[in-house]
């Protein structure tokens, strides 16, 4: 594994308002988020030579990168839209690094924006599997199938899943930008309605409008800018790929291999990580992710959450802004934004004290794709 150390940085992050955001188009969410990230970095659209996008989930437009470039009034040297679902949030960073390494670009914007809350979301209820006659529609039922298998193999309980949702809501309550900030208890969770057993409503992330973006460049360029650069220390990806119900092991993910790759390229170990931002579209996902990364043993994810060890102030704070479950249901881009803010010391009252290394975990489909990224501030303490 080649080392990325001290070569590439995230120098700007931005987002539009999360939640219900009528009248803002998909293009607007992308453009406003990119302009906000550029301003954060002290750059302008004229500094950009690349625009990379993840396609909106609610629709799947062709040539989306060029459309966003047009809306920024630039003709970039590099543009692409990558289809790894949620894992694209990191896959696009890898693509940006490749383009910079090849000398094709120096400053690249990566964005995602969608409006399924106030726009169309018909695609959210499409059937999963070969045949709609099996009755499996929508992502919650498919992830519930994964959760049921994990419960069977390891004794994971609904109370433990509740504690994943509660942990992330607790952090969202400290985040004025989060879509859901109201605290709830295990009893509240237990009385929320079933969607697809073993999942209740509070196991599922909300449908949200919003956009988020980040700016990637070289360390050299980063040093000319006003903000504290956040270094990309390591990246890994691994993709289980098959339709979820055909995979030999259902209660696993690509995190094991992707994580190993990321830690090796960074020269770091799980013990070096101060906090995680983990893709949490459903409560079962971060629980399995922590197990696969080796932060806990297989089957121990549930008790780790139940013992509140992922809370800010605990041994491994996770999803410090509320994650997909509470900050916004956006598919993962917001997790990169939050990791950068934490490493710059901009976490306000949800700041992880002394944070130097953060892990960002992204996955897509039904644990179909996976990517992991390690970020650091190179020990510049807040």
């Amino acid at each position, binding site marked *: 594994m080649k080392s990325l150390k001290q070569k590439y940085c995230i120098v700007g992050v931005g987002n539009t308002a999360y939640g219900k955001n009528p009248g803002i188009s998909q293009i607007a969410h992308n453009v406003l988020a990119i302009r906000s990230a550029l301003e954060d970095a002290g750059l302008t659209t004229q500094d950009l030579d690349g625009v990379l996008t993840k396609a909106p989930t609610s629709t799947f437009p062709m040539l989306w990168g060029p459309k966003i470039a047009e809306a920024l009034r630039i003709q970039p040297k590099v543009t692409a839209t990558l289809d790894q679902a949620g894992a694209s949030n990191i896959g696009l960073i890898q693509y940006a690094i490749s383009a910079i390494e090849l000398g094709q670009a120096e400053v690249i914007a990566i964005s995602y924006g969608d409006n399924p809350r106030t726009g169309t979301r018909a695609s959210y*209820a499409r*059937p*999963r*599997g*070969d*045949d*709609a*006659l*099996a*009755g*499996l*529609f*929508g992502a*919650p*039922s498919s992830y*519930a*199938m*994964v959760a*049921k*298998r994990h419960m*069977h193999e390891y004794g994971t309980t609904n109370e433990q899943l509740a504690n994943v949702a509660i942990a992330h809501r607790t952090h969202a309550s400290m985040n004025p930008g989060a879509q859901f900030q109201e605290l709830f208890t295990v009893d509240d969770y237990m009385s929320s*309605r*079933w*969607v*697809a*057993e*073993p*999942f209740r409503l509070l196991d599922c992330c909300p449908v949200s409008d919003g956009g988020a973006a980040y700016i990637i460049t070289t360390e050299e360029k980063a040093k000319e800018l006003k903000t504290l650069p956040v270094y990309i220390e390591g990246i890994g990806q691994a993709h289980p790929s098959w339709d979820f*119900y*055909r995979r030999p092991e*259902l209660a696993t993910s690509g995190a094991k291999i992707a994580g190993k790759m990321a830690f090796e390229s960074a020269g770091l170990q799980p013990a070096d990580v101060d906090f995680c931002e983990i893709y949490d579209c459903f409560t079962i996902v971060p629980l399995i992710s922590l197990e696969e990364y080796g932060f806990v043993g297989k089957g121990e994810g549930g008790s780790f959450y139940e013992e509140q060890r992922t809370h800010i102030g605990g041994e491994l704070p996770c999803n410090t802004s509320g994650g997909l479950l509470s900050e916004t249901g956006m598919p993962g881009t917001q997790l990169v934004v939050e990791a950068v803010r934490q490493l710059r010391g901009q976490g306000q009252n949800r700041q992880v004290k002394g944070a130097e290394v953060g892990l960002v975990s992204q996955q897509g489909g039904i644990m179909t794709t996976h990517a992991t990224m390690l970020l650091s501030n190179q020990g510049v303490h807040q």
Partner: protein
Amino acid sequence: MSELPVADKFAAFEELIPPLTDLNTPYREALSRGELILQQCQTCTSHQYPFESFCYECGSTELENKISLGQGFVYSFVKVHQPYHSAFKPFIPYTVATIQLDDGPRLLSAMLELTTEVKIDDRVKPRIERITASESMLMYELERS
């Protein structure tokens, strides 16, 4: 073709029937006869569903259709409460299971009108219901029922 009676309570499923293709026609015709067929690779002997023109295991294009008893066990399942589609509404909450077939492949299947709760590892068998004059639907039920 044998005559399975059309079950009116399943008529609403008609709109979920996927379009006929060269690949799925033999499978669908067999279902209307009350039979489940899989593909079997003549090179590596593995069974396959859904149908393709090649074997996913070894790449061979030598595939033959084979009648399957369709028995297997529940690998995982969910109980759906959300009304995603009107056809399933009268059966809510209904079970969708990942079925591990004894013949090898896994498939997703609805388990409707269950009288006892399903558990992982429960033995199951196919239940084929005629839903229109020409089309049938594959569901599963508990072997012990």
